[in-house]
């Protein structure tokens, strides 16, 4: 690891942890379906940054880039499916409130 990569490693880790916290907080606290998806997106952003950082530090940029491209394709499909489900739920409930989702008690 080069000296520059070493000095950068910890600040990046710090901000990745912060992104994870923001995403999880959003996911846990919100009552809105779309906002839950946004929280999920933030989590995926954090993971993407983590992967790229690992690739940079280990000098495996090419491998990591191909992984991240695949990851982005997966992410888009999941979000599109989730958006479709949210639209369907909105048609039934006329709201985006998670608290309306109490028909099924887990």
């Amino acid at each position, binding site marked *: 690891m080069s000296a520059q990569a070493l000095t950068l490693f910890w600040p990046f880790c710090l901000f990745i942890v912060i992104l994870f916290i923001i995403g999880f907080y959003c996911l846990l606290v919100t009552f809105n379906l*779309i906002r839950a998806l946004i929280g999920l997106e933030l989590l995926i952003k954090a993971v993407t940054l983590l992967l790229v*950082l690992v690739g940079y*530090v280990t000098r495996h940029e090419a*491998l990591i*880039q191909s992984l991240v491209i695949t990851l982005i394709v997966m992410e888009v499909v999941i979000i599109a499916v989730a958006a479709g489900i949210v639209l369907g739920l909105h048609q039934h409930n006329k709201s985006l409130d998670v608290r309306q989702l109490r028909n099924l008690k887990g």
Partner: protein
Amino acid sequence: MLALNIDIVVLFLMALSALWTVMTRSLLRSAIGLALTSAMLTILMFRLHAPLAAVFELSVCSGLISVVFIATISLTQPMSQEKVLQHMKDRLERFWYLPILLILTGIVLSFLNLKFNLILPAPEIEKDPRIVLWNQRPLDLLGQIIMLLTGAFGIVILFREAKKK
């Protein structure tokens, strides 16, 4: 030293826009905040020697996904006025812990400043991500094709009647 500063500034901006995404009241602004976070991530990816993936991130995540979010938000009804007022109070109660939590985490982690003495694997020989993807990871490409087909099925099934009504 200059390079380090730019990275830290972009990281900070990214965290700020993520925070704004979560804290803002309007869903639309939230979606825009997500696009902004994604754009900051693009800059970071570029600086971390991942230019090709950065292009994907910019076009797909801050482009396509934002479009999906904004379409979903505009297809779903906005709330009535009094509900919005109630909602604002609600939100403030639930969300004001977050900045405090973040600042605390930031302080703790920056004082911790772990020094990893990482012993790293040998650097790779192949330097072109396109060649890696096509020659070494054909299975991932196959998986991508299958995933896109799944997405096509999902969109046809889930969105079709939504348009009719």
